[in-house]
């Protein structure tokens, strides 16, 4: 059902109502964007600290090492190392990728791309951001505790995460922060699902929605279903830590029955595997649209792409066991989970082939959003292929817990999503802020990200295949791993280079906010609804709710006579002579 209930809310007049507790989806999107970028910086710095330790163990971290670790002469100590990789993973997944891809793009794109004036529940939307903000504060506060922040890995497996493995309040605050973030995500999911179903512009069927909206919508559905599963897990973990229960403590009380640490792993991965898709679906959607927009061709098999993304979402809910092949799972179960995991390759291959079909013989414009989108195609391809080794029991048993796993999930969850996020930022920046970003700097940023990024993550695959385990403070105390030191140095140098090139992005972003060239309504010449209105849009987006008459990827129609190679979604599809 589409069209309809779309009130114009009064425009806020005070600074407080306009920028702080704003109900406007566009402002909330920007709040999430700033929030995500800030955490991206923090998580990125942590990554550099981890990488430095692995390449130059026992050496002080340059420049700020003495400031951060005054008691160890600037060297990252082992306990801080465990804290760093835990917080790096947590921050990047929950506090950087989620706010940018889902919070910022979801809030900004969904109402604009479906022709709505706002989300279905603007107040809930505002609360969603402030819950996320509170959650971020709690997490950051844990860094300043006497015994430090959580250090049991981003997966927080018991017993590492119980009071036995993690004394101090850091892990407890981690649980509280994750729970609060879950509440925020659920609020967002309620809004996204409802908005897409009820506020689409008249004439917009589900397959007339841009694939970006499809990705965000599916993400919201997965969020609503699976984030509470993690919520239950962290509540029980908190009770174990604070109240003395034994849900995840084995052998705590032999006479009265003990808990089950492996149960937490089940709970975590029932959430955790869909979470992978929660993070990547928005990027898939964005890339699916941008490849079409910048190839000046209709998206090849757009319906099949949407249905494939849906199929992946469904399958993602029944494959989690492949994360637990080494937990003495029954062989019958491992084989079942392996088979189910392999079936995900089918819909994934369909939309991947559709991406290639879209750019095939297209009039490709290598603008920065397209470069980043092509980057996603490359890195996601690699990430997907390396997933086959880990989804197969026989190879996973050898590769489990090695850097091969780290390389694989960084290719899929980090590289793909990061590049997809940048593609989205460069693409919608003109609409968001009314100014263009500098294209030359954007292209330098792309190559400065893309090349080192592969140095990092391909290097991880190599050292992992070479037998280097993850989460070891100094792997080179083992003779067998000493030969991997040069590759680790290469990875670290790549990471430093990639980090430095992000400064170009930050400068470009901030400079363009104030000094960038004024953006026209439709700088990329595409036909989706948000490009029919001014840049930036007015408070209520649309003076008149648009009526949709064609799909979002109408390019290169030979019957077009108006000098354009695209049609707006509000225009009747131009037909040729009968």
């Amino acid at each position, binding site marked *: 059902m589409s069209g309809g209930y779309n009130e114009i809310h009064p425009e806020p007049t005070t600074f407080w109502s306009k920028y702080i507790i704003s109900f406007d989806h566009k402002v909330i999107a920007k709040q999430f964007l700033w929030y995500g970028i800030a955490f991206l910086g923090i998580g990125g710095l942590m990554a550099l600290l981890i990488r430095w330790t692995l390449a130059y163990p026992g050496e002080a971290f340059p420049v700020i090492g003495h400031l951060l670790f005054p008691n160890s002469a600037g060297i990252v100590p082992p306990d801080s190392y465990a804290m760093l990789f835990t917080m790096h993973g947590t921050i990047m997944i929950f506090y950087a990728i989620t706010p940018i891809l889902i919070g910022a793009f979801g809030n900004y794109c969904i109402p604009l791309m479906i022709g709505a004036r706002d989300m279905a529940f603007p107040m809930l939307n505002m609360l969603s951001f402030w819950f996320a903000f509170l959650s971020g504060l709690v997490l950051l506060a844990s860094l300043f505790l006497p015994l430090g922040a959580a250090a049991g890995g981003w997966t927080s497996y018991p017993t590492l995460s119980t009071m036995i493995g993690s004394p101090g309040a850091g892990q407890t605050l981690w649980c509280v922060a994750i729970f609060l973030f879950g509440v925020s995500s659920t609020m967002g999911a*309620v809004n996204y699902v409802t908005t897409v*179903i009820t506020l689409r512009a008249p004439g917009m069927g589900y397959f007339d929605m841009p694939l970006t909206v499809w990705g965000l919508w599916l993400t919201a559905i997965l969020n609503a279903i699976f984030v*509470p599963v993690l919520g239950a897990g962290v509540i029980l973990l908190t009770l174990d830590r604070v109240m*003395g229960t*034994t849900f995840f403590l084995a052998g705590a009380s032999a006479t009265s*029955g*003990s808990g089950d640490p492996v*149960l937490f792993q089940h709970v975590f991965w029932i959430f955790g595997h869909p979470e992978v898709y929660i993070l990547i679906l928005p990027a898939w959607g964005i890339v699916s649209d941008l490849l079409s927009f910048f190839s000046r061709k209709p998206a090849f098999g757009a319906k099949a792409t949407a249905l494939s993304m849906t199929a992946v979402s469904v399958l993602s809910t029944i494959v989690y066991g492949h994360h637990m092949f080494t937990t003495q799972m029954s062989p019958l179960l491992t084989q079942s989970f392996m088979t189910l995991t392999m079936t995900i390759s089918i819909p994934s291959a369909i939309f991947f082939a559709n991406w290639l079909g879209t750019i095939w013989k297209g009039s490709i414009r290598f603008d920065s959003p397209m470069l980043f989108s092509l980057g996603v195609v490359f890195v996601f391809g690699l990430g997907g292929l390396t997933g086959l080794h880990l989804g197969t029991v026989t190879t996973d048993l050898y590769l489990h817990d090695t850097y091969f796993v780290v390389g694989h999930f960084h290719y899929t969850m980090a590289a793909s999503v990061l590049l997809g996020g940048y593609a989205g930022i460069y693409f919608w920046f003109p609409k968001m802020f009314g100014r263009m970003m500098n294209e030359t700097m954007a292209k330098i940023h792309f190559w400065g990200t893309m090349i080192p990024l592969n140095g990092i993550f391909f290097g991880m695959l190599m050292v992992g295949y070479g037998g280097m385990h993850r989460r070891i403070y100094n792997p080179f105390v083992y003779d067998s791993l000493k030969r991997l030191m040069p590759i680790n140095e290469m990875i670290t140098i790549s990471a430093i280079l990639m980090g430095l090139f992000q400064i170009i992005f930050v400068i470009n972003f901030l400079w363009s906010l104030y000094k960038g060239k004024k953006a026209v309504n439709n700088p990329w010449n595409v036909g989706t609804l948000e490009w029919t209105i001014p840049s930036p849009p007015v408070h209520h987006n649309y003076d008149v709710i648009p009526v949709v008459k064609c799909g979002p990827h109408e390019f290169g129609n030979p019957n077009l006579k108006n000098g354009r190679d695209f049609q707006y979604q509000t225009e009747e599809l131009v037909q040729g002579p009968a």
Partner: protein
Amino acid sequence: MKRNELQNNLAMTVVLISAAMLFVTLFMGYAVYRSSADVWPPVGVAKVSLWLPFLSTIFISISSWYCYQVRLSVAKNDISAAKSQLWLTTVLGLAFMLAQSGLWFFMKSSGVFVTSGIFASVMYGFTWIHAVHVVLGLFALGYLRWVLRTPSPYILQKTINVEKFWHFLGVVWVVMFIGLFVF
């Protein structure tokens, strides 16, 4: 169906699915504990008396019925009757909380402490988590009381939403009662 109703129904459905997933996870964990235990309750731990949980079940069931009556009265625009029924719903909700507090006190005085192992963990932990939701539900009932004060076209929709949440809590409790206390 009006747009506003559709939005509210959809949103509430998503909220209930999310909340249900939380409890489904708890019950899944319970199934693992039960199926992997040789005997349940574990040796040396006495089964909790059914008396107080049964009383809680009675309270929350009647409370749910009165909540249903609230919606019927609001639908008939009989706000005065709705207010009385809402008052009864809330009092029974509070009685449920009182019975639950009694249950926790009784378990403690019987030597079943929170730290007494997995049986006590389940009994205390699950009922606490449910009770927190009931407290949220009581706030929702208070909000509905406030909503009923002034006429508005959205009263019925808001009543339906609160009613759904309250029934949901009742259903979860009944499942908990049967799963944790009866069997």
